[in-house]
């Protein structure tokens, strides 16, 4: 316990209750003492401070390791998974093919007109965050947010090169001699390597990964790829290596949204002040046991915090609820022979009950409540809706745009011709013949296209549509003289039927314009 807080921090003038509300001053970091000079006698800026968080082991640290491994593995490995889709579609399992406007995810292929699936996924992601927040508080911030994961990764790099908390703080203050320069260069090289790999993995989602890797190293990839890697390398290096908790405290909107979403039933990491206060060292407490609480003021909770806050100040925007202070405090409590959980996951409601003398509740009891269940319901409903839409969608599509100028055409013999621009969608990864038929027009109506001449006009045409593509077709429909009413437009439909085993169909209503009085 020799490792005391070496950050300049005025001692709190009075112990504050853990539920003292949102403490913005503490949330934004403890202010540095005002410099001697500055604009109009005030400091123009707050001096930066580096958080050197101490190594700790415990259940939450191990959980953080696990989440980090899983999320990083997903990020780096996913683009390299293969998925056989046949000869006409790429074999990458997850591919955002912007150039060809296709999104592949395993067995799912999304076309631009089906973007509502992506919109639905974004809605699920949003409501999922609400759900997670209402159930387990800022778990996203503490474990899964990329900023958290990469910051954690970079802090481990710090630890590897410069040692633990005190060694790193000492090295920061040390003069720039050869040894420090070498160590810094080595560390920053590793930062850069990780950052480059991060940016490099990102672009693999947008093109065939092996091809792109080859092109990238042979200098023949698209300039956009190099620019993207350069930008992401730079931002990762800067945000992960240097900005770290500053991103959460100053840049990210999510902590603000989450503070608005938390209530007295939300799971937060909290210091049980009724049990801890008055804090004092073991020595002091031994002299006067009645006056002191369980907190031995060892500052371990501060030392391990990745955002450098003091959880004993209460709820604050800088707390990402990663639980490392729980690990640290539990360890100390075990050493001094006091019960664990002085700092623990709990809701403010549980805290109040506990302070009033009720026994401690297990944290999971806070999970089941109406708000959480409503979020879960909405989230599941959207998910079920998307799955249903996905399961029932056809891979054949048809859109019809009738010519508006001119709407109809009178022919020499008195026949009436209308022209339509058709888009035949074949969303299967194989070429298909599709039967295009007229439905609901008077007898004698025929159709021809650019590919099928007037001599071969017929009410039904078979059209070959290439794999995984939309065929744009200009079709002419002609009614013989005297057919149909003279002054009314005739409603009818095109029906597209795939000529394969599934016989998928698509039907599109449109109308046939007649000359009326102009004839």
């Amino acid at each position, binding site marked *: 316990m020799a490792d005391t807080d070496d950050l300049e921090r*005025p001692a*709190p*003038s009075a112990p504050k209750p853990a539920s003292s509300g949102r*403490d*913005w*001053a*503490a949330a*934004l970091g*403890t*202010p540095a003492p*005002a410099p001697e000079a500055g604009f109009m*006698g*005030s*400091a*123009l*800026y*707050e*001096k*930066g401070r580096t958080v050197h968080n101490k190594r700790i082991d415990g259940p939450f640290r191990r959980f953080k390791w696990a989440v980090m491994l899983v999320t990083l593995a997903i990020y780096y490995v996913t683009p390299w998974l293969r998925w056989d889709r046949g000869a006409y579609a790429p074999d990458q399992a997850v591919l955002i093919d912007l150039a060809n406007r296709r999104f592949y995810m395993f067995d799912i292929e999304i076309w631009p007109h089906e973007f509502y699936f992506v919109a639905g996924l974004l809605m699920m992601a949003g409501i999922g965050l609400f759900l997670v927040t209402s159930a387990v508080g800022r778990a996203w911030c503490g474990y899964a947010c990329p900023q958290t994961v990469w910051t954690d990764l970079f802090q481990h790099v710090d630890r590897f090169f410069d040692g633990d908390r005190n060694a790193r703080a000492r090295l920061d203050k040390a003069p720039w001699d050869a040894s420090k320069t070498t160590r810094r260069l080595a560390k920053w090289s590793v930062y850069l390597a990780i950052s480059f790999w991060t940016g490099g993995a990102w672009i693999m989602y947008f093109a065939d990964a092996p091809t792109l890797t080859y092109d990238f190293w042979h200098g023949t990839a698209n300039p956009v790829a190099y620019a993207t890697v350069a930008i992401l390398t730079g931002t990762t290096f800067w945000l992960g290596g240097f*900005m770290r908790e*500053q991103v959460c405290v*100053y840049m990210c909107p999510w902590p603000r949204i989450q503070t608005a979403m938390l209530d007295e039933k939300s799971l937060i990491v909290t210091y049980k002040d009724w049990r801890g206060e008055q804090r004092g060292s073991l020595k002091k407490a031994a002299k006067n046991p009645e006056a002191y609480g369980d907190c031995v003021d060892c500052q371990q909770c501060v030392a391990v915090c990745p955002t450098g806050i003091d959880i004993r100040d209460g709820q604050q925007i800088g707390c990402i609820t990663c639980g490392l202070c729980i690990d640290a405090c539990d360890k100390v409590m075990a050493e001094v022979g006091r019960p664990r959980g002085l700092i623990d996951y709990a809701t403010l409601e549980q805290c109040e009950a506990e302070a009033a003398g009720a026994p401690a509740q297990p944290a999971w009891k806070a999970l089941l409540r109406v708000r959480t269940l409503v979020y879960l319901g909405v989230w599941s409903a959207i998910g079920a809706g998307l799955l249903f839409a996905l399961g029932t969608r056809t891979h054949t599509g048809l859109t019809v745009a009738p*010519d*508006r*100028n*001119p709407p109809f*055409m*009178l*022919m*020499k*013999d*008195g026949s009436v*011709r209308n*022209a339509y621009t058709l888009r035949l969608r074949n969303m299967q990864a194989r070429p298909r013949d599709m039967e295009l038929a007229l439905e609901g027009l008077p007898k004698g109506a025929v159709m021809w296209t*650019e590919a099928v001449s007037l001599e071969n006009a017929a009410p039904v045409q078979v059209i070959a549509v290439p794999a995984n593509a939309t065929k744009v077709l200009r079709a*002419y429909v002609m009614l013989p*003289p005297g057919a149909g009413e003279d002054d009314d437009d005739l409603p009818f439909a095109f029906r597209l039927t795939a000529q394969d085993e599934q016989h998928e169909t698509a039907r599109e209503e449109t109308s046939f314009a007649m000359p009326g009085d102009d*004839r």
Partner: protein
Amino acid sequence: MTKKRIDEPTGTETVGHEWDGIEELNTPLPRWWLYTFYATILFAAVYVVLYPAWPMIDRATGGTLGWSSRGDLAREMRAADAARAGVRAQIAATPIEALPANPQLMQAAVAGGAAAFKVNCAACHGAGAAGSPGYPNLNDDDWLWGGTLTDIETTLTHGIRWDANPETRVNFMPAFKDMLKPAEADAVAAHVLSLSGKATDNATGAQLFADNCAACHGPSGGGMPAMGVPALNDAIWLFGGTKADVTKQILAPRHGVMPAWKGRLDPVTIKMLAAYVHSRGGGQDPAPAAPAPEVAKGAAPAAKAKTDG
């Protein structure tokens, strides 16, 4: 007067001002944020020097890079022209009747023709090429002076009744104002309309038609499309299909004029316009007995000469 102090509950310094007991806490920006602000100021200063920025009396300062949005446009237009140059050269080298054999080239020609049509032709023929009374509809299957690609190209190049062009297509319908009495003109009009079943026939009209009109329009009113003589037995009427319209056209015929585009548009654009007009749905293919394209090319001027008479 400012009186700074440390605020007790928050432990934060105040800025030192006080209004009726309300004070402001001093929570300054982090240093990197302040520096980011300075960086944007520096960026703005550099931008003002490099790019047009400072408004003067009649224009903005030019900037040392010489950039302008107009220059960007000119560059993009040059790039687009350069990108099209290959296709245009190919179209120029391909005789028009050989275009359909190359669907890609034909598609490019139709697209280019559609753009040129909107600029040069839509004023008379309409944006959709549907025409209006006196201005032929180009979508249908009724053609004056022929509806094959070659015919359309010739019409476009030399115009119709366009005196400035020596090779222009010319024909002439006499005015019967002084030759036919009103009742006779009425009878002829009735006979003409009866050819397409729009009126009942009459002997006077039939006789007058046979004597005066059948020489050009044919005994049954089939016309001579290749010579620009309209068919009178179909559903399409250039100057209107009512009896009054037809009578008017018999007594004092109107003659449409189509400008010759040779010299005003380059041959490639004319070729593309012909392809577009032909693609509107009524284009005719060359007669099955027509000779091979090479020979047809040689034969075209002869055909032209014939129609010029």
